[in-house]
């Protein structure tokens, strides 16, 4: 078993220790300063913070898209930043799903292809991709998987984005302001889909949002404070 395949199946989906980050030339203080944070397998947590507090940066650090100056991030037992280059990217593709505020679905690709693409990059064999993607979209209630996302309703687009995030059976789903561009009714529906889908897939969900109304949906809530220091409890 390679290093990238190591997973802590019985333990935390996410473990952060002493994570510190600031942009180059970004001043003396830390933008991200998380002393310790643990998210159990299948657990769901809301992380709130005002705009500009570094929520998205934290998610990118967790996903291994950025390197911290200090600290460690473990996803499913694998220290993300210990992996280099393509190995880290492959790990991200397989173990971490991401959902964005504006969905970030690819134009020119059908809903099915958007999901298949994630599976291809996540290393799922060509033979099983189409069937799995179609089934996933069916489960999420996508009526026209062969349609391009821009021809689908906003709610359906959100579901395709969720399907893509769950395509490779991730241990952790990172949702970045997933409802910020939706009206309250659609937002509620979208959050239902995200939370239920993650629950069904057994994936932990870390949702960042500045929307206080989201609080009621999560049993566990933490606040990333002031852009200088955050200490989320274990």
């Amino acid at each position, binding site marked *: 078993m390679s290093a990238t395949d190591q997973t802590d199946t019985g333990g935390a989906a996410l473990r952060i220790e002493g994570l510190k980050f600031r942009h180059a030339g970004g001043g003396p203080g830390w933008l991200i300063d998380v002393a310790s944070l643990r998210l159990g397998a299948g657990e769901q947590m809301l992380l709130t913070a005002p705009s500009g507090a570094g929520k998205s940066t934290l998610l990118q650090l967790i996903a291994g*898209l*950025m390197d911290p100056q200090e600290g460690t991030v473990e996803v499913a037992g694998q220290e993300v930043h210990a992996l280099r*280059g393509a190995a880290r990217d*492959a790990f991200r*593709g397989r173990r971490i799903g*991401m959902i964005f*505020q504006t969905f970030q679905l*690819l134009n020119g690709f059908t809903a099915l*292809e958007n999901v298949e*693409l994630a599976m291809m990059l996540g290393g799922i064999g060509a033979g099983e991709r189409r069937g799995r993607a179609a089934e996933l979209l069916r489960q999420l209630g996508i009526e026209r998987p062969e349609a391009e996302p821009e021809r689908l309703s906003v709610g359906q687009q959100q579901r395709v984005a969720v399907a893509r995030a769950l395509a490779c059976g991730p241990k952790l789903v990172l949702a970045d302001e997933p409802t910020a561009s939706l009206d309250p009714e659609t937002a509620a529906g979208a959050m239902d889909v995200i939370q239920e889908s993650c629950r069904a897939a057994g994936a932990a969900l870390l949702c960042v949002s500045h929307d206080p109304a989201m609080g009621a949906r999560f049993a566990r809530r933490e606040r990333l404070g002031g852009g200088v220091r955050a200490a989320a409890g274990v």
Partner: protein
Amino acid sequence: MTDLTLVRKSLLARLPSTVVTVLTVGVAVALLLLLLSMREAGRQSFQRGTGDMHILVSADASPLASVLNSVFYAAAPARALRMDIYEKIAEDPRLEYAIPVQQGDNFRGFPTMATVPAFFEKFRPEAGANGRGFRLRAGAFMKDTFDVVLGAGVAEATGAKVGDKLVITHGAGRGTPKVEGMSPEEADMHVHDEFPYVIAGILEPTGSAHDRAVFISLDSTWIIHADERRHADARAAGRPAESVPEPTKENLRPEEKLITGVYIRVKTREGSEGSPAIGAVFDQLRRDVRLTVARPSREIDRLLEIIGNIDRILIAIAAVVLVSSAISIALALYNSMEQRRRQIAVLRVLGASKRRVFGLVMTESAILGLLGAGVGAAAAALGTGVVVAELQRRTGLVVDPTLEVRAFVAVAMGAVVLACLAGVLPAVMAYRTTVQRGLRAVG
């Protein structure tokens, strides 16, 4: 879905830009392939086309014009020589042959070559001592005065068969010599329908300009033109047409027996092309100021030298066009990068490595080059056909273009390599695209 699917979708998403870029590369590749294939074929065709003659005598303005007109049928020779000049030349015992020819008329645009039986018996249209002579595909060589033998190209183009009758038209369509008593328009339009010819034979292809010639006897053309001239003279003098004596071989006057050239071969040792006598005969003939004396092989070398300089320039231009097409690939990809940052960021989030993203852009670039090479090869194949036909129509040059596989592969590979080089900068941009920058919504 594969990485190629991503590349294909990316190219299709920018279809107009993709098409323009591919066409730009295609034009450059076509130009290069066309020039490379035509260059060697043209050279061979010219060298082959002069046949085994050593010297050409005419009254043309220059030796090169004389060769182009009298051997390649580029235009009707502008001036004529009297037969007695030929007879004097032919007395030289150093000559293997001296064959009189006269050009100036045409059959459906194909130039006539009026000559004597020795043209078929002695002159070899393929260069070199071992070149093949004329061979018949059908029928026989000329026996009667108004027999005609068709070059292979003429028979093919017109569908004419042995035994068919045809009439020739005055003028070769270009640079028609003057006919006394007729306006140039009348002369050009004048059909010699009072003197029909019978097709006696059809030649096998020789790969030379003679394939598009219509061979008639000197006697016949003299009779036709003597008849014309005598009637014109009678009209000018106010005499009735009935008073004009019908021209025959026997009653032709010396001034009615005109030729436009003499094909000459000097005697050489068997199997040899060279002889000191060639230079001596050449120098002796040049002393006669009435004559334009050419050594066809030298004139063709001179012509090829001129063409060689031009085709080097053309090939350089084509290479520059290919390089600029590579720049257009770079620009197309560079311009698309801004729109594709989001796509690249999404691919990165989904697990694509930077190297894979780099590879995708490079593949896209290589495919543009490959498509361009394909389009170029197809265009070159079509273009070659057009150029060959046009060259044959305008100059009589029968070109058989061939392109070595190696040259084709080199040009196609060159296009792909240049396209890849053009893709490096956009690929590096893609490689360096950060997810933060790509996904602006991620704050």
